[in-house]
């Protein structure tokens, strides 16, 4: 079961089964201690971090660097998808994929948050022209 962990040096928070050995923020070894979800929420609430479509686009552009996939070069498709992703965040709380419907089970629905783990999906895995369900991410040609 995944838990929250806090770096006792810099307050970096990790959510996972095990704490990181090395804190990626302050680089201290064995610095994490388990905390409650309420404590984690307070730490997350310290900073208001709203993300607009431009910032999200920048984030996914950084995300694909060094990966075998890229953001779809079809600008109209990407524009439509980003509109849907942000409408879903505003209306349903998370950046859910506009091409699948949530089940209304939060943990299950986390699998639909963009970017999802599309590399295991039938539309991407073992396909030369693979793409995620919605087509926001496509396999790079150089990886064919």
């Amino acid at each position, binding site marked *: 079961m995944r838990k929250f962990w806090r770096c006792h040096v810099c307050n970096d928070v990790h959510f996972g089964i095990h704490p990181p050995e090395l804190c990626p923020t302050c680089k201290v070894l064995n610095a994490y201690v388990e905390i409650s979800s309420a404590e984690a929420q307070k730490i997350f609430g310290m900073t208001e971090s709203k993300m607009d479509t431009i910032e999200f686009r920048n984030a996914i552009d950084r995300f694909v660097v060094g990966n075998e996939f890229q953001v779809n070069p079809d600008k109209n498709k990407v524009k439509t998808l980003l509109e849907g992703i942000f*409408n879903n965040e505003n209306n349903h709380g998370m950046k859910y994929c506009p091409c699948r419907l949530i089940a209304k089970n939060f943990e299950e629905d986390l699998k639909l948050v963009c970017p999802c783990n599309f590399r295991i999906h039938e539309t991407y895995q073992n396909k030369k022209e693979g793409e995620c369900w919605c087509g926001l991410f496509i396999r790079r040609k150089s990886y064919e």
Partner: protein
Amino acid sequence: MFHGRECPHCIVMMPVVDRLEKETGIKIERLEVWHDDQNADLMRSYRNKIEPKCGGQLRTPTFMNTETNDILCGEVQYEELQNWATR
């Protein structure tokens, strides 16, 4: 047809559905699921039928014949949609 307003696959399928309706006279009810909670609940109520045919997901677009429970999902060619609608 369960669809999402900002789902590119659904947008592609709309003129295909228009053509099917025009050529066959079959009426396809279009239910948007991301901006209409009733439609979303209706799609979720068919979860056990839709998911096995749609990669374990409630994908859009999903075409469902409520009389036969025949399901087709995703972006498909006109002929495939026509086969689904007329079989």
